[in-house]
């Protein structure tokens, strides 16, 4: 099954199992059902439990918080993270604080599904990856699944989590059906999706798929064995898995879909650098979005996004290997603004 179908199935299975689960968001009941992730759920569960909403991001988040502290489990969906910025008061001052501020007397079990992305001219306000914003706030959990099966497992767990969980779906993953590699996944646990001894790559969401491509190339052509950690949960971050891996490889490359300033990549690199038991052989590599708004034009976005070729180039430099440009070109997608030919927009 595809990522988007498994998101839908996770919601359906939880709603089947637990009648306190409700699900709402703009477009949840429309014919497209948020890229298929909520399609027809209202037909099965009725409009008391699955409903569309007024275009009131902040209000509806607060309403979710109110319902959640009363014991309902709330799943809320937005078509893009960028719209959700209107709701920062409710997520930061209400959802994240309820449990702590009221002396642990109540919980706020709310899952906020936000879609991040890149390409197809999404432009400055439809393409941001703001996981660092949410991870900055005590009391929130932040989940970013990469593999379709993990999307299912983590969403089910998020719905049953007694805390507010920000669940970030990359638009370029919706149509993928990558099955996860070995091992169990749960919130707070990163996934080692490739073992290696030379360098640890910590990556998240769509960039993990590009990392895997890069790692195969580096292994086959240069004998560089990368260990890839797919973060899956940004918060609480799986410090243990990251540090153990870097203790072994003594090299780190962190890739993040978000912006570079005060971002997740900086955070992970600092975590590694201040650890007394780690002595790096090479300077860490940081791969994030530049500190510029994402432009819209096809002509302007060519060098905006990280792909397997960019990742390979960074690592080849680290290992002082010869860079064979025409080989790297083969790692590039035919068009930089789409995940594959199946993606035809419009959003």
């Amino acid at each position, binding site marked *: 099954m595809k990522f988007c179908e498994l998101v839908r199935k996770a919601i359906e299975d939880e709603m089947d199992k637990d009648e306190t689960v*409700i699900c709402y968001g703009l477009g949840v009941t429309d014919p497209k059902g948020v890229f298929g992730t909520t399609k027809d759920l209202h037909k099965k569960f009725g409009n*008391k*439990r699955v409903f569309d*909403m*007024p275009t*009131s991001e*902040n*209000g*509806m*988040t*607060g*309403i*979710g*918080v*109110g*319902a*959640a*502290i*009363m*014991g*309902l489990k709330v799943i809320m969906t937005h078509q893009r993270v960028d719209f959700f910025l209107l709701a920062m*008061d*409710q997520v930061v*001052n*209400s959802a994240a604080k*309820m*449990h*702590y*501020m*009221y*002396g*642990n*007397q*109540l*919980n706020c*079990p709310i899952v906020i599904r936000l879609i991040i992305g890149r390409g197809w001219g999404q432009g400055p306000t439809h393409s941001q990856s703001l996981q660092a914003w949410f991870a900055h706030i*005590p*009391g929130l*959990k932040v989940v970013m699944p990469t593999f379709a099966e993990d999307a299912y497992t983590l969403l089910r767990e998020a719905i049953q*989590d*007694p*805390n507010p969980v920000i669940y970030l779906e990359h638009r370029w993953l919706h149509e993928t059906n990558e099955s996860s590699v070995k091992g169990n996944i749960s*919130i*707070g646990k990163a996934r080692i999706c490739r073992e290696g001894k030379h360098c640890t790559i910590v990556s998240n969401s769509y960039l993990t798929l590009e990392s895997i491509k890069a790692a195969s190339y580096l292994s086959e052509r240069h004998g560089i064995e990368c260990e890839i950690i797919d973060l899956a949960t940004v918060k*609480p971050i799986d*410090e*243990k898995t990251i540090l153990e891996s870097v203790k072994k490889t003594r090299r780190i490359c962190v890739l993040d879909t978000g912006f570079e300033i005060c971002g997740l990549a900086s955070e992970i690199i600092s975590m590694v650098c201040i650890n007394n038991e780690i002595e790096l052989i090479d300077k860490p590599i940081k791969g994030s979005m530049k500190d510029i708004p994402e432009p819209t034009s096809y002509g302007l976005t060519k060098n905006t996004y990280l792909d397997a070729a960019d990742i390979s180039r960074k690592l080849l430099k680290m290992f002082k290997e010869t860079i064979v440009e025409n080989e790297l070109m083969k790692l590039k997608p035919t068009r930089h603004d789409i995940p594959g030919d199946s993606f035809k927009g419009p959003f």
Partner: protein
Amino acid sequence: MDEQIGTKWMKMKKESEKEKKVIYKTMKRIRMIEEAIAEKYPEGKMRCPTHLSIGQELTPTIISMLTSKRDKAVSTHRCHAHYLAKGGSLKRMIAELHGKTNGCCKGKGGSMHLIDMKVGFMGSSAIVGNSIPVGTGIALAEKIRKTNNISIVYLGDAATEEGVFYESINFAALKKLDILYVCENNLYSVYTPLKERQPPNRNIVETVKSMGVEYTKNLTERKTEDLYKELKLVLGKIKKNGGPGFVEVETYRWREHCGPNYDNHIGYRNESEFMEYQKTDPLNMLEQMLTKEVVEFEIWKEELEKRISDEISRAFEYAEQSPWPEETEGIKGIYADNGSYK
């Protein structure tokens, strides 16, 4: 007078006297508690921003009389009167102001974040407008669960300038939620008067009405009996027919926005306005009314004051004797499941 009508009249008079005494008792208690906080605040033991409800006791008093503990309420930064009227624990409130472990939030909330779930007081927020959707979500949960409980959302006049106010009202009207929004208009947002914030002749009630809220009313605390009757009517209609209600109540804050002092001298409002509202102080007016109507009211009042004053002393003693939270408490309870946070 016809004997039957006479008996009925006597009965009504007695009932209204009883109700007035309950209102007086609750208001007086809140006033005395707030005055005690103001008096002790300069000692520096209550180390958090504190917004006193003095002058604004009547509306929550009446609303709590007309609702039950099953009905929920949420409030604002100025939440003491709402919390106390609803039956929130005094001891735990005073302990919370002192930052002590027995406080209603274990010392993690302070004056602006009171909660007592036992009596349906579901919290209050320091951010203007923040609790409006939360209270609306509570009403949604009650509706999904078919409980018939009413949610009360207290807000100030400034919150009607926040987008989330309209978002919440819209949703409550759309879903016909059993909720009463109570806008206490005390004319100021901190020190900024209404005229700096809203165009002249803006009628908040009319605005809300036009959004599809059926039960709306403009009210004032200057007329206790009318306020009681109108609130009873609105709450009764919501209980019976469902659907949201909205009332705007004219009220006045006596002390400074935040803190224990009077602030008429600093220049944002004038003494004459303040004196005007003092003249119509609902507590004082009710006291005058009861003095005339109730036999031996003075004795009853003295006993009442003594009882409240003892209760307040005990609450402050309790707070002062409560231990500080252990230092490690500050890093606990961030998540509801401790397991996954290392």
